[in-house]
């Protein structure tokens, strides 16, 4: 039981959890997921991606200083942050989808807290031995040999924690360079600070806090329990089949009196959060499914069918209690709610992909000077000034021209030119992957409407071409 019945004490000491090693389908699945997720985490920053001479060659890079986010062929600018917002929305809907279909699968398989705790526990078994040895060692007095073991274990944890914290920073700078700087002591202080902080949190959360994080700190379980319904898969002890518990011997002596559970407590022994699933669904269960593996093994040994503990929905559990045959897991996945989530999720993804494919690689923005709005020139012409920003999202310099469409007689020049050089178009070469800022003057004869709407049209004059335009306004004195 999670909570103590003894309420005389206001505070509860953490009970040691010494999960026993187990093998089986879900354990192997978890190994695979651990290898993949950790692999992604550690390898990604080191993948190179050629973007030409003007952009970094790191496949995934969050470039804070230059405010760019690179992900393989996709480059996100700050003004396109809605893609990141879209990804977050997808993550949210994805969580709904996964939770309504397979319950707390995130918690059980993919959550970093789970993955790193799992890794740390594996190290623990390697150094201290399995469950019983661990219990014995925990109870033992502090002898040099215990100290040696503890130091060995903590050192390995610390190394893993350091590799974990250290890997994070490589997502934010060129990895090989940063690594060189890191070891030569010339990296930015924030790199060392981040590494130290993440090393500490990994060490403490993975080594010592473990299930306490899931049970007390994390909001996920609360949110997820709220999102589960009676059609979501949860790890279920099939009490109608298991009760009344009794050993194989007793069952043989009294046929018909006992259920399938032989009360061997293997399910409890392997549980990483130290709970007993036979007490029913509870917030301490992260649905890692290791108790399923443990019980299946026991059932195989005693020659009873597997699945005394199994993934099962609340509805199916009720039906099975009434004698229905177990429903295949896959059948529980497709239902209106999950299909609706899936549709929402995939349409957001499709919309984002479409937007990514259709986005322009050049853009122009114009802001009219408001103070003064217009200036009368000595020859009687009226001048308006604009701050023009031209965005070149290609990683090469591009020649472009700007003209004023719908403003008859307009002559344009920039603050780097004399008015005598004013023409109907202004040429500008925009550096790669950057925004060029121009101060642009437009002069027209004094006669004309007080307010005149027109467009600045930007045309790329290289082979690829392309055009963008921006509405603007010209104003004259009354």
């Amino acid at each position, binding site marked *: *039981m*999670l*909570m*103590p*019945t003894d*309420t005389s*004490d*206001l*505070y*509860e*000491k*953490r009970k040691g959890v010494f999960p026993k090693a187990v093998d089986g389908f879900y354990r192997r699945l978890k190994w695979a997921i651990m290898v993949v997720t950790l692999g992604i985490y550690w390898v990604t920053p080191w993948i190179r991606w050629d973007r030409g001479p003007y952009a970094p060659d790191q496949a995934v890079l969050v470039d804070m200083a230059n405010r760019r986010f690179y992900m393989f062929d996709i480059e996100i600018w700050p003004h396109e942050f809605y893609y990141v917002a879209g990804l977050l929305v997808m993550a949210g809907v994805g969580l709904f989808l996964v939770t309504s279909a397979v319950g707390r699968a995130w918690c059980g398989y993919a959550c970093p807290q789970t993955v790193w705790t799992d890794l740390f526990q594996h190290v623990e078994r390697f150094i201290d031995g399995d469950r019983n040895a661990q219990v014995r060692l925990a109870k033992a007095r502090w002898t040099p040999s215990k100290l040696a073991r503890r130091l060995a274990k903590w050192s390995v944890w610390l190394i893993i924690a350091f590799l974990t914290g250290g890997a994070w920073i490589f997502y934010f700078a060129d990895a090989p360079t940063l690594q060189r700087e890191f070891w030569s002591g010339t990296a930015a202080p924030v790199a060392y600070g981040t590494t130290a902080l993440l090393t500490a949190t990994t060490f403490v959360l993975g080594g010592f*806090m473990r299930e*306490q994080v899931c049970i*007390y700190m994390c909001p996920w379980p609360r949110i997820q329990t709220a999102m589960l319904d009676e059609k979501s898969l949860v790890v279920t002890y099939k009490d109608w089949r298991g009760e009344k518990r009794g050993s194989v011997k007793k069952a043989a002596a009294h046929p018909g009196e006992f259920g399938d559970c032989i009360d061997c407590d293997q399910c409890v022994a392997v549980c990483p959060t130290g709970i007993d699933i036979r*007490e*029913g669904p509870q917030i301490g269960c992260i649905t890692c499914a290791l108790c399923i593996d443990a019980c299946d093994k026991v059932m195989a040994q005693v020659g009873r069918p597997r699945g005394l503990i199994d993934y099962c929905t609340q509805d199916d559990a009720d039906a099975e209690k009434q004698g229905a045959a177990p429903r295949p897991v896959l059948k529980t996945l497709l239902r209106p709610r999950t299909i609706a989530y899936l549709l929402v999720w995939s349409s957001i993804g499709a919309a984002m992909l479409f937007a990514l494919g259709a986005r322009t690689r050049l853009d122009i923005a114009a802001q009219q*000077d*408001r*103070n*003064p709005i217009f*200036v*009368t*020139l*000595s*020859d*009687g012409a009226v*001048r308006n*000034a604009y701050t023009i920003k031209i965005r070149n999202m290609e990683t090469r310099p591009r020649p472009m021209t700007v003209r004023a469409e719908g403003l008859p007689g307009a002559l344009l020049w920039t*603050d780097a030119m*004399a*008015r005598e050089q004013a023409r109907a178009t202004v040429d500008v070469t925009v550096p790669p992957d950057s925004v060029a800022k121009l101060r642009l*003057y437009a002069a027209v004869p*004094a006669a004309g409407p007080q307010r005149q709407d027109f467009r600045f049209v930007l045309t790329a004059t290289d082979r690829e071409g392309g055009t963008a335009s921006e509405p603007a306004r010209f104003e004259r004195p009354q």
Partner: protein
Amino acid sequence: MADDKNPKIDAATGTQFKGHEWDGIQELDTPLPRWWLWTFYASILFAIGYVIAYPAIPMLNDYTRGMLGWSSRGALEQELAARADQVAPIHQAIAATTIEKLAGQPQLMQAAIEGGRAAFKVHCVQCHGSGAAGGKGYPNLNDDDWLWGGDLATIEKTLIDGIRNPGHDATRVSMMPAFGRDQLLTAPQVDDAVAYVRVASRQDKPSAAAQRGATLFADNCAVCHGTDAKGNRALGAPNLTDGIWLYGGDTESIHQSVWNSRQGVMPRWDDKLSPATIRMLAVYVHSLGGGEATLVEAAAAADNGVEGNVAQ
């Protein structure tokens, strides 16, 4: 497990009820984890440390200042001092570079424009307006019409010495007589002169009055404004044929100008601002869209000349 007999114990968790109930929802007396208590103690320790290190407790006339001696005002001063240190070399460089040479150094030029923009907001907006668009009697600095000249060096000279700054010999002075008030011209003559100026600036069609005025203009005004009425920058005499009027180009305003004369003033700044600030102001004003390049080109030509000499 389930304890139906004892209503004070929750059956599902075996935890005691607190006895509080809201619409059937009851509060359990679940114990907090012990480590949570340690984080609580740790935050208390942190708070004590903070109170010792930083300003914290208000007293009657003062407050506890903390061992580190930190204050938000002090932090601001530090930041300002750091900023001043940062820009000092730039200001030095600007002060050490003549304004003609400044144009050849885009980075310094850009820094000067920004510095000038800031100084303008403090010293100049009172008359010239925040957008430097001026007003009646206060020149618009955005346009291409200049009383004394619109190249960098001339603007800087105007800033240094001002216009009609009393008691300053180097100040710029132009003397427009009050033709009407001082009875240099009769009232009808003033009307005729005004009519001529209106025609010269192509605002009115030629008329008999304007024709009479042309003669008056040649005799009385052309000395400064030129026979073609295009003005003379050496004297600060405005061009009367263009579209820009400092005091208004309508008949009434021109009449006022001729009758009473105009004596606009601008203070000298060399006794109030540092040379670097004045230089930055000049560069900023020059950058507003009407700046003239003549002298810069002349300076460049001069530089080339010097190089040529060296080569010889």
